[in-house]
């Protein structure tokens, strides 16, 4: 039961914040909080890969982009011209297509959002699997560079492909209906609804990952990080586990990408940029490589601040700065620093007796 305490606290905080924005007439905060929650979903997935399995990934924005772009493309590319082709008729037969009208009143035939969503996530997972097999054999700098290279290739592809809108990206992405009555969309009327959808997804993600870490699998992952050689000799199939956790984190990133794209109604090539990948790594590093909650909190806070424009034109510089400072002074994340010791020291210096149990003049 004690384990459920942080979760319950989080749920309460989430609800309280939403109510407060209603009372203080600051409902626009909900938009950034919703987006921040989706980014945090990617980040907690990345945290498990980097912090627990110990594999660095400098290309995770690539998986986010694969999820977002494929879903966006499938739900916006008009197939009406091909409606007589066999493949299209088959897809229609399976109920995967949706007919409608575009803004000019012309007939529109696109893939249904839920089908596009599934296709996008599966694509991302498959890419992670295929990429992971050779890449995860690498270590250290080589692994970093390979994942960086992957991220750049995705970026180049979306930037150069007409089907992905080149530099303009894809817009007019339709809402994603989840359940009857629940839709992911950027409509101002559904702000509260989407806020809860996003945070609901994040909380579910946290629960799943928390369960994973506390399990046999989590131990196996941590053992790989602890000593890969010993883990192998103890019977852990290190290659398989690294691959699976990599794919899992890619799925988290892709889901975040899909949902955020439908929420925003669009996606652009900047979501696939190297800077985004670096940003995610920075946040995981700050939150503490092996602290899931730390990563989540930092993910939400830093993304929220960034989205509110608090960092101004120094946005990227801030994350670069954070990276350096954290890596120099607190390589295990700020939660790992001895805050308690620091505060205790403060108290002692100011003569507070409660902390030390001694009188001010030092007698016990």
């Amino acid at each position: 039961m004690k384990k459920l305490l942080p979760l319950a606290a989080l749920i309460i905080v989430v609800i309280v914040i939403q109510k407060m924005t209603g009372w203080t007439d600051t409902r626009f905060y909900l938009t950034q909080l919703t987006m921040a929650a989706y980014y945090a979903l990617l980040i907690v997935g990345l945290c498990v890969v980097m912090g627990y399995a110990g594999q660095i990934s400098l290309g995770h924005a690539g998986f986010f982009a694969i999820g977002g772009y494929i879903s966006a493309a499938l739900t916006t590319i008009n197939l009406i011209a091909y409606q007589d082709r066999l493949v299209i008729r088959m897809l229609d037969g399976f109920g995967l297509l949706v007919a409608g009208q575009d803004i000019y009143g012309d007939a529109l035939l696109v893939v249904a959002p839920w089908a596009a969503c599934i296709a996008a996530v599966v694509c991302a997972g498959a890419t992670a699997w295929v990429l992971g097999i050779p890449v995860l054999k690498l270590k250290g700098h080589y692994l970093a560079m390979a994942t960086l290279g992957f991220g750049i290739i995705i970026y180049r592809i979306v930037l150069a492909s007409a089907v992905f809108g080149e530099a303009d990206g894809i817009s007019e992405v339709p809402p994603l209906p989840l359940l009857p009555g629940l839709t992911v969309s950027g409509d101002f009327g559904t702000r509260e609804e989407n806020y809860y959808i996003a945070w609901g997804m994040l909380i579910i993600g946290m629960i799943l990952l928390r369960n994973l870490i506390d399990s046999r699998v989590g131990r196996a992952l941590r053992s790989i990080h602890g000593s890969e050689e010993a883990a192998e000799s103890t019977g852990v199939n290190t290659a398989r586990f690294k691959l699976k956790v990599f794919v899992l984190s890619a799925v988290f990133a892709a889901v975040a990408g899909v949902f955020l794209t439908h929420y925003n109604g669009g996606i652009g090539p900047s979501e696939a940029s190297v800077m985004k990948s670096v940003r995610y790594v920075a946040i995981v590093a700050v939150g503490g490589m092996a602290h899931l909650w730390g990563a989540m909190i930092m993910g939400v806070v830093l993304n929220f601040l960034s989205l509110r424009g608090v960092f101004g034109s120094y946005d990227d510089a801030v994350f670069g700065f954070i990276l350096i400072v954290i890596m120099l002074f607190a390589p295990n994340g700020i939660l790992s620093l001895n805050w308690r010791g620091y505060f205790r020291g403060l108290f002692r210096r100011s003569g507070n007796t409660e902390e030390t149990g001694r009188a001010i003049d030092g007698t016990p």
Partner: protein
Amino acid sequence: MALLDVSRLHKKFGGLHAVNDVSFGVEKGAIKAVIGPNGAGKTTLFNLITGALAATSGLVSFNGAPIQNRKPHQIAACGIARTFQNIKLFHDMTALENVMVGRHLRSRAGFLASMLHMPWTLKEERQIREKSMELLALFEIAAYADVEATSLAFGQQRAVEFARALALEPALLLLDEPAAGLNMHETAEIGKLITRIRDLGITVLLVEHDMSLVMDISDEIVVLSFGEKIAEGVPADIQNHHDVIKVYLGE
């Protein structure tokens, strides 16, 4: 049929013939020691058996099935566990957690089942925890279960590594210099421990430098020098073997 059979094993590193045509067997239920001066190729031999290194040529079979060039985790799955010369415990994990990883092959919970917290995984976790605590108690370090493993004293770290290896319920246990860094008293304790492990039905193959330990507990000894086997037999024979004496003490 021997439990472990090494047949004409070779390992070359470029020009260096680290293991040169080595053949021997380990009978089930025996304690066999591999000795030899430094650089004789003992740890390389271990690494070849456990799959950490790929053999240049030769055969290693376990229970009649060939295992050379298999991956280490597959070899562990066959029932072979090992300890390391420089203790390799898992960082940032407690002693108990280290041993619990040893139960990995005796449990099934996978990614999906773990994430969804399926009820059967909870029961399995409880069993893993209980068995691991038993092993810690066997080595008298149960009190340190929740201490971070690499912060324990050297002898205690050794015990954790032992416990972790035994958690696999192996048929064959490979011990790489188990007495390294231990004093006389501790070495004697380790000797008793190893014999107790053998009495549990586990076959033991160890590499060791401490001659008193080796002569005391081994049923058979293999002597390596410069990668070649120069003698094999019971302790009494080895002690009087001319080539062995020459290799350790000179002419």
